Each structure stands twice: as structure tokens, then as C-alpha cells.
């Protein structure tokens, strides 16, 4: 990425009229900024699924509704896992900042386990619903539910794969700038999934059992 040529650092800050005239930003800024834009686009995609869910939430076609299907206890544990994994992901970022391999691996492991636990609980919920004949083919409401929640689940799965790849990169390549930038993007991604989940929890599960 050749554009990230450092602007002459000899020029003092007072010589620069404004940040927008400072010339190309550093690679770290460019990469994380680009990733922010990606996350925004991803959230726009979720918003389309949210909209579809909102439109179809009452379209149960005579089938079961959210009140009958959702188990709040299981969802609460799921939420706890995901939020805690965000915390351990934050600890991992600190460990990376201070270049500590051992703690980085440990935090990554905790994050992975919590994320995987979240997924297992979610899949159990899905399997239970399908077993009682409340699969996505049953009604428009269930189609929208499985798609919205499943899309978030796919993101978590992708995040777990990414985390494994990143740990392999740390092990093989060490904390070089490319790897650090990718880890930064990973942590942005993981936190963004939490934000989506908070919305999902509210719109699907909390509002869903209110009948």
C-alpha cells in the first residue's frame, strides 16, 4: 500500500493548517478506517434483516409465535457469553499492545471458548425449534427469525475462524505491523457483533416475549 508514504515529519504541527491537509494518513489509520466503513456496511445489511423481521414478526401463518418458542434463560446465558467474550477480546488488545504472547494466547482462548459456547447454545435453540416443527419453513415470521439470528451466528462463526487464523499468524509471524493491524480489525469486528447482538436481543427476544 504505497499511498501510506509518511508525510515529512520534520514539519511541525503548527505548520499544518488543518488535519485535512496533512497528506496521506498512516497505514494503521487507513486500514482501521477502511474496516470501520466495512462494519458500517455490515450493519446496513443487518438493518435490512431487522426490517424484514419487523415486517414479518406477526406473520406466523397459524404457527407458533415468539412467546411460545423463546426461552429467556438460555438466551440470557448466550448474551452473557458473548458480552464476556468481548471483555476478554478487549484484554487481548491490551496484551497485544504490551507485546505479551502468553496473555494474548490465553485471552484469545477465552474469547474463542465463550464465542463457541454462544454458538452451541444458539444451535441448540435452533435444533429445539426445528424439532417441534417450528423451522424456518413454517412461517414468514420463523423465516425472518432464523435468517436474522442465523446471520449473526454466521458472523460469530467467521469471527472464530478469523481468530484462529490470527493466532497462527501471531505464532508464525510475531507482532509485526501487518499482524497488529489485522488484530485491531478483528477486535473491531468482535465488538461490532456485540452491538448487533444487543439490538437483536432487544428486538427479537425482549419484544418477542412481550406478546
Amino acid at each position, binding site marked *: 500500500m504505497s499511498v501510506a508514504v509518511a*508525510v515529512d515529519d520534520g514539519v511541525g504541527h503548527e505548520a499544518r493548517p488543518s488535519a485535512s491537509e496533512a497528506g*496521506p494518513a498512516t497505514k494503521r489509520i*487507513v486500514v482501521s478506517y477502511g474496516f470501520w466503513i466495512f462494519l458500517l456496511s455490515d450493519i446496513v445489511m443487518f438493518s435490512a434483516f431487522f426490517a*424484514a423481521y419487523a415486517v414479518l414478526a406477526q406473520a406466523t401463518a397459524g404457527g407458533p409465535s415468539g412467546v411460545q418458542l423463546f426461552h429467556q434463560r438460555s438466551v440470557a446465558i448466550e448474551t452473557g457469553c458473548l458480552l464476556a467474550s468481548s471483555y476478554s477480546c478487549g484484554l487481548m488488545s491490551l496484551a497485544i499492545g504490551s507485546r505479551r504472547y502468553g496473555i494474548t494466547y490465553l485471552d484469545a482462548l477465552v474469547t474463542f471458548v465463550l464465542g463457541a459456547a454462544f454458538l452451541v447454545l444458539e444451535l441448540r435453540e435452533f435444533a429445539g425449534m426445528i424439532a417441534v416443527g417450528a423451522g424456518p419453513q413454517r412461517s*414468514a415470521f420463523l423465516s425472518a427469525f432464523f435468517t436474522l439470528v442465523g446471520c449473526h451466528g454466521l458472523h460469530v462463526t467467521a469471527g472464530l475462524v478469523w481468530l484462529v487464523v490470527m493466532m497462527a499468524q501471531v505464532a508464525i509471524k510475531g507482532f509485526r505491523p501487518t499482524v497488529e493491524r489485522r488484530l485491531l480489525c478483528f477486535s473491531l469486528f468482535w465488538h461490532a457483533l456485540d452491538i448487533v447482538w444487543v439490538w437483536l436481543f432487544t428486538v427479537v427476544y425482549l419484544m418477542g416475549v412481550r406478546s
Partner: protein
Amino acid sequence: MSLLGKLDWSAIPFDQPIIMGASGGMILAVVSVLSWVTLKGYVPYLWREWITSVDHKRIGIMYTVLALVMLLRGFSDAILMRTQQAVAAGGSQGYLPPEHFDQIFSAHGTIMIFFMAMPFVIGMMNFVVPLQLGVRDMAFPTLNSVALGLTASGILLTNISLAVGEFSKAGWVAYPPLSGLQFSPGVGVDYYLWALQISGVGTLMTGINFVTTILKTRAPGMSYMRMPVFCWTSLAANLLIVAAFPVLTATFAMLLLDRYLGFHFFTIGGQGNPMMYVNLFWIWGHPEVYILVLPAFGIFSEVVSTFSGKPLFGYRSMVAATMAICVLSFVVWLHHFFTMGASANVNGFFGVMTMVIAVPTGVKVFNWLFTLYGGRIRFTVPILWSIGFMVTFVIGGMTGVLMAVPPADFQLHNSLFLIAHFHNVIIGGTVFGVMAGYNYWFPKAFGFQLDERWGKISFWCWLIGFYIAFMPLYGLGLMGMTRRMQHYDVASWQPWLVVAACGVAVILAGIVSQIIQLVVSIRNREHLKVTADPWDGRTLEWATASPPPAWNFAVLPQVTDVDAFWKKKQRERVQAQPASERKFEPIEVPKNSATGFVTAFFAVITGFALIWHIWWMAGVGAIGIFVTVLAFAFRDEEEIEIPAEQVARFEREHEAEIAV
């Protein structure tokens, strides 16, 4: 369950002479181009310098080539439709059976929007934006190459559908329930959906890349209000891509789930809601028309200002108008279906917003006119396209405002009036824009100019042909003719449709002239050779050699004004500086990468497998993509260094022509 899913010999339409002829011709053309390239020994060169290149200029040129090829494909569909409708009146059924005609209009729309206009616009932005920003590449060069590859994958899948299976018969918008499994059980809609999903991911990557490039990597001193207008309109278009394309991806994902797994988003059964698709589609679709036209507005701004020899009139109002359109484009989607049955207040809101969005567009038109006013205009090919645009686009805009009135729209909805309107703005806006840009930046890309005479012939054929082809459609719409008719019984429509077909013949002459223009120019390239600044330009792309070196600028320019290059030329005229001995430093450029090509290869495999339900092959393709990305992530070298000596040598050789 067969190993090849739904695919067998019946997929190839042996009984359809027109389709077999067309696909035979296409395969022959591809095979002969490939064998010519191989026999001439160009493969290593193409692989090294183009296919694996991550240089934004090369990628931009490849996008443009794709767009030009697909223009021919989409235009041949147009010829088929116009000739069919010219003859299929009363007792005659014409020469195209309904199921073939339906595929043709669906393919025409899909190709022209997604695979002609989009790659053309993205190609222009790719080539020009980093040069205008005064930097050396895009923010993410390899991502750029992957985006190109995915666009090409979508194009390839669409063209495969011609020979293997069928294309969608559900129109380019693919509304359910028609596009659902119940009424479209064939693979046509699947071709449409997977081709657009794959290329849509590529477009999203492009959007992210450009937003980051424009906002985070500009030459020192280039504040926002010193950016060329083309960069501004590109920024707006790419913000729209980032905000709108994910909605399309989600919508198509829902339709795919309906078709593949029996979900009930848009089905009649299971309480699905087909109108939700229409809403979601146009929440993407209306911003999409501005994604196409805003960069064209930028091109006109550059061209008008350059060939009038004046700074753009009302630069700030142009920027404000661009950003106003960017925002407003998200609150007008419902005007595509006032007939849905929303309440009068809802329709009224969207009608008024549609009229409001015409205001910033009007601001732009006046800005261009005032830029021309009092200027010393050089009537070159690019400015002809721009003036042709101003007249044509205003007519198209006015008919659009007519249809923004809901009661009027109830009459005009889905009639040929609508067809005339949107061709009027898309051809008159986007196509004229990219043609202006193609003629304007060609000398920068290749170091020689395009032939003026053939360029002018082509322009006049296009302009006149456009009016002959589309003005009758306004009349036909008012006479009650609806769109997508394979056959009709009203005899009084026929003369108008014959006139429209003649118009298409004139446009064809325009396209042929463009091909001749290209051939003649390549043959006379020594004679048409240009320096860095053939048009007396105003922005930074004219400050470096034609064609620019891989690193664009030996030293990043220091920007102090809008029209950075123009101001610099003026300063130098006043105070002739002695050519100072400059010191060059080594420059890092991104390393070539096959990632884009390999990803595209596996994307085609995955897409084709999913269309034909060949699950094992889809798995192979998906794993292929994952491994490719992994290999990219683990590569060690990302950049190569160009030694200072090489930079200095290039600069010495081009000293006479480089001004920075």
C-alpha cells in the same frame, strides 16, 4: 441425486437456432481471442502486467474494457427487442417466442445496469481518482483487484447462462412472486441472483476502498474544499455504494433462501410479503441510479471547466448539491411503485421528496451553463458529449418530475413512458458521461489521443439515434403501451415502434464509429501522440506523464488551491523557475498479486455449482476462496521498492512533459 445436480444435456438449448447461433458466436469469439493471445505469446505479459496487477490505472482500464464488451452484448439485446416489437403487431408473432423475449429484456436490463454502466463508472473512478488526489494508489490495492475479479465473475456467469441453461425471465428487478420458485422453477433466476450477489460483493469492496482512499489519502495540502469535483462526486457515489449495496445483498439472500430452502419471505404461502421485496429492492435501487449518475456529473464538471478555460462556476454549491443528492436519494424509493396502494399521505411525501431532489440537480445544470458562459469553448469530443448531456438530461429530468406526481404516475406506471424516461436519464446522463470521460482521459491512459473526426461522428449518431429511438416511446406510453410486450394487437402503435427501431440503427452506427475510432487511433498512434497535458487541464492527473508511471508521482504534489495544476502552471508562467536538480527517493509500490484472479476463478466455480445444485463443487469453490485468502494473509512481502535511480531516469526522460 446426480453428481452434477440439475445439470444435464437438456440444459443446452439445441432446438433454439437464435440462442445456439449467439452462444456459438460468443464461444468462437472467446476461443479465438484466447488462442490469438496464446499463439502470439502474450500470456506471460498479460499475466504479469495486467491480470495480477494491483495498479489502480491498470484495473481501471480493465474495468472499462469489460464495460465496453458488455455494452455490445447489452446493445445486441436492445436490437433484438426493438426489431421484435417493430414487426410483432396484430397477426404476426415476430421472430422471438415469449420465453426467449422475456430472457432478452431481463438480460438487457441486468447487463446494462450492473455489467456495463457500473464497471464503466468504476473504471473511470479507478483510473482517475488517485491521480486527481495526487497519490500513488488506492488505499487497498489488492482488494481493488479482487473487486475487479468478482465483477468479472458475475459477468462470466451471466454470459454462461446464454449457452448453458437460461437467464431469468422475471425482468431485471426480479419481483416475487414471479421470481419465486413457484413461478420460476428454472435456473434463470438463480443465474441472475448469484451473478449479482458475487459482483455485488465486488462492488461493495470498491465502495469501501474509494471512501477510504478519498477521505484518508490525499496529497499534502488537499483539504476537502480543494478536491476536484470528480473526487467529490466519486465520494458521494461510493458512500451510496457502502450504504445501499448491503441492502441488495440482504434482499437477494432472502430471495435465495426462499428459492433454495423453502423460506417464506416473499412467497404467497406462509404469510410472506412480496411487496417487501419491492421496497427493499428500491431502497437499494434508487441510490443506485445516483451511484451511476453522480460520477458522470463529476466528469461533466471536469470537462466543462477544462474546455471553457474557466474554473467551475459555484464549486461550493456543486459540492453541496452533490452531497444533498447523496442524502436525498435514500428518501425517494417509493416513487418506483406508487401503485402499491400506500396511503395518499405516504405517496404524497415521496412525490414531494422526488421533486425536491430535482433542485440540487438543477443547481448543477445551471453551474455547468454558467461555466460555459463567457468561456472560450473548444469544441472537442468530450465537450460535445457534455453539451448533448445537458439538453438530453434536462428533458429526462422533466419527465421524471412529471411521474413524481402520484396521480399521473398511476397512468404512466410500467408504460413505455417510464422506459423512455429512464433511458433518457441513464443514456443521457451516465452513458454520455462515461463517453465524455473515455475521450477525455484516454490520452492520459495511453499517451495518444482518440481520433477527433470519428469521435464526432460517433457522438452525433448516438445523440440523433437516441432521440429517434426514445422520443416515440414517450408517445407510445401515453397511448397506453406497457413495457415488456412480446406482441401487441394495437395497429396504431406499430409506426412508432418502426421509428424507434430505426433510431436503434442510428445508435448502432454510433457504436460502430466508436470501434472505428479506436482502431484508427491505435493505427495512427504515433501521429496522435500527446504530452502530459494535452487539454490544458486543471487537475493533478495532467501533472504527470501520459501514461503515468506505476508510482504516479515521483514526489507527492503540494496542493494549495482547487484546480491545483492550473494554479501551478499560472505561477510558473509569472516566475519562470530554473529547473532545479531534484533529489528522488526510492518509492514503494504494492506487489502484484494473483489473489484477485484466483478468487474470481473459485467464485465462478462456486456460483455455477450453486446455480445447478452441484453441492460438492460449491464446497470445493468455497474452500478454494478461503485458502486463497489465507495464502494472501500469510505472504511475506507486500511491497516492492522502485529504486530512486529508476524514478530519476523516468523523470529525466519525461522532463519536458512533466510539470510537477
